[in-house]
């Protein structure tokens, strides 16, 4: 037996760390790039490195980041959720209408919005699990339907946030906006979820090989319901945050969030084919997009060029993972 032990030991020992570094090397590069952008910002613009601007960047990153975390969990299972932008839109409208500027209505508005998120997530889960429709199709339909519902509710701003809700947007702990802290807390929770819970492991397993997951007796359907509900919830919460920022139910909010979140997740090294995800990578992706957008504004770059630059970043990131990952 000793020879067998030595044989296999020699081949595998101590490689886990090397593999981890190889897989996550590109994420370090994302952070290095963020650092570079910050340095450019500090040296090229007086307004970039101010408390006020950094607080703004942090808030904007939180708005994108919360949904991106939900999106990442879905993509980890080899799924996708295209409906998050439309759901943010419906959420801000519903919460604004229910709240209608009254403090007494804050709790009902929050509960109604979260309930909306849960329902949409369950519907996605049902269609994907029971009717076996591809997640792309299900959530594409849901994108169109929810947008239609939103624009039917109102094509102009409706409802009103209560005073406390509006104050929530500017509230800070020390120099840090509370919304940014909230996002940071969710990053930690997601990290723990993936690392230390059975649910987290099942997300990897389903994304890695659904058939194996099924044959191993995993609750594949339940897990899928769970992950789509979580993702929709993240969109509903973001709708509430948008209400605190806008003060009214603005139907223009939410468009394009799905693509931005997918972009952030991909930059963060999560595989669109499932089975591999990185929370810190997604955080990096979110920050990279947020800082790029902010910096381009600060430097007075034409906003249409921003899209071009984002596109280049996506291709560069994916090319990087291809080189390092295989």
């Amino acid at each position, binding site marked *: 037996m000793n020879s067998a032990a030595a044989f296999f030991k020699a081949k595998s020992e101590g490689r886990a760390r090397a593999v981890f570094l190889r897989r996550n090397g590109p994420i370090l590069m994302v952070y290095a790039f963020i650092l570079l952008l910050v340095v450019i910002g500090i040296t090229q613009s007086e307004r970039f490195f101010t408390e006020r601007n950094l607080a703004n960047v942090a808030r904007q990153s939180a708005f994108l980041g919360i949904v991106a975390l939900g999106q990442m969990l879905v993509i980890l299972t080899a799924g996708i959720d295209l409906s998050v932008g439309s759901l943010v839109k419906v959420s801000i409208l519903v919460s604004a209408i229910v709240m209608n500027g009254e403090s007494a209505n804050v709790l009902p508005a929050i509960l109604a919005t979260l309930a909306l998120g849960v329902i949409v997530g369950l519907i996605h889960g049902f269609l994907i699990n029971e009717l076996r429709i591809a997640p792309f199709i299900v959530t594409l339909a849901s994108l169109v339907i929810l947008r239609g519902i939103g624009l039917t509710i109102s094509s102009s701003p409706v409802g009103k946030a209560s005073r406390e809700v509006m104050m929530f947007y500017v509230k800070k702990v020390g120099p840090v906006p509370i919304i940014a802290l909230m996002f940071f807390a969710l990053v930690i929770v997601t990290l723990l979820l993936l690392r230390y819970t059975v649910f987290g492991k099942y997300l990897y*397993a389903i994304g890695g090989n659904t058939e194996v997951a099924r044959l191993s007796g995993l609750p594949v359907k339940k897990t899928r319901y769970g992950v789509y509900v979580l993702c929709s919830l993240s969109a509903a919460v973001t709708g509430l945050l948008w209400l605190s920022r806008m003060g009214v139910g603005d139907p223009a909010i939410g468009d394009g969030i799905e693509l931005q979140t997918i972009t952030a997740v991909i930059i963060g090294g999560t595989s669109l084919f499932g089975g591999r995800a990185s929370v810190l990578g997604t955080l990096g992706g979110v920050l990279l997009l947020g800082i790029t957008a902010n910096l381009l504004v600060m430097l007075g770059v034409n906003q249409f060029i921003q899209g071009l630059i984002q596109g280049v970043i996506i291709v560069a990131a994916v090319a990087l993972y291809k080189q390092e990952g295989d």
Partner: protein
Amino acid sequence: MQTERSGIGAPDAAFPNMSEYILEMLNISKSFAGVEALKDVTLRCKPGLVYGLVGENGAGKSTLMKILAGAYRADAGEIVFKGQRRDQATTADIINSGISIIYQELALVPQMSVADNIFLGREPRHPLGILNLKQLYTRAGDLLARLGITLDLRLPVSELTIAQQQLVEIAKALSQNADLIVMDEPSAILAGDELDQLFSIIANLIEQGVTIIYISHRLEEVFRIADEVTVLKDGEVVAARPLAALDRPTLVELMVGRSLDEIFPQTQRERGELLLVAENIATDTILQDVSLEVYAGEILGIAGMVGSGRTELARALFGADALTSGHIKRIGKDDAAWSSPAQAIRAGLALVPEDRKRHGLFTALSVRINLTLPILSRLTRLGIVRRKAEERVVQAARERLSIVMSAPDQETQFLSGGNQQKVVLAKWLETAPDIIILDEPTRGVDVGAKFEIYKLMRQLNDRGIAIIMISSELPEIIGMSDRILVMNDGRVAGELTREEAGEARIIEMATRSERAHKPA
């Protein structure tokens, strides 16, 4: 046909003492669409022994094990495991009752770690679904220690060798407290000394009282580790004996010894000129040091077991896999050499692949498109496809091969297997090749279509076209080939003329294990 039943496999033996056997599969029968895959098969296993289950491809080994696993239901018969009826159990019940099956395609999640894979679905946990990582790693480590191996528990299994992945599967089986482990062709994915490691682990498991059913077509392996051997042939048990009561020739004879049940068209032909020479070729795959010659107007049969390198040889000849050594040369036609399928086609080769649905046909597209795609540039004028020319090609192919279809626009997925195969053949004939490589040309094809394909092959020979035919069906190899190359473990084990060839001889060459004598 001689049918022997003796020892523990005898279905008519006195009803045994329940405690003596851990597993009894009694009088199992199973048909698929009217074809009997298993007929009255009985398999009994005592605890702590290794049972070899052998037979040719298609003898019913896998079907029997899938019935045991609960993946198929038997039409008749019972399964008793540890004294309990199990023939209506689900896959999950079977696993829980202590049976683990390790398939050739390993069931692991590649991105997850060794420890995660071992306990997938049965993770040690705290309340609230929190993982007990400490226990996960300790228990995974203990299991590997029981197997006498060391693996980095945190390494994703995609980073492991295939042999190591197989060990993870075995550890997974142990973690499920398996009393019976079925290994389906475990050696097919192992190389060289890895096999010895597997055997020492099996010995270790046996010491711990685990029962092993070892499915293999490599007789050497069976002789090395089995205590009892059950031979399946055409869905029936032809022998079930202690290993001591068997010798190699007897076992080979039990496995084959069938008469040719197909009529093969015969014509007397002279071998034509030399068309192709391959010398000492090897690729990144299993293929090593293969040399061959191909002559005009002949059929060169390539025999060998699944996984012996036959398909890899076809791919190498066709330029689909890059050569790591040796060379292939077309004789005549400027002595062309090639390194891609496109160049190979220009040099006059055609490959009709084994898996026609994946590699040979666009199943969602029409017969017309499938037939004309390789030659489309010849049918165009100013880049626009000439409908009439296309129509002529389709009609000609339809008549020459008697392809049965409702219309040229019918999608090929709706054709029968035989007609699909004819479309693939017709497609390549349009490129006017000199050498056609046919990989399993009659797999999944009914008898009538088989005969037509054989006839067509002879017609092609008459036109001077050389055919390289890979087949698992020995009667087909023997009946059709002018010369036969037998592959074994990536090498040519020998060349036989039609006169020399017999099923036993080919099987013997294809299964002889040379691993023991190979330098490490």
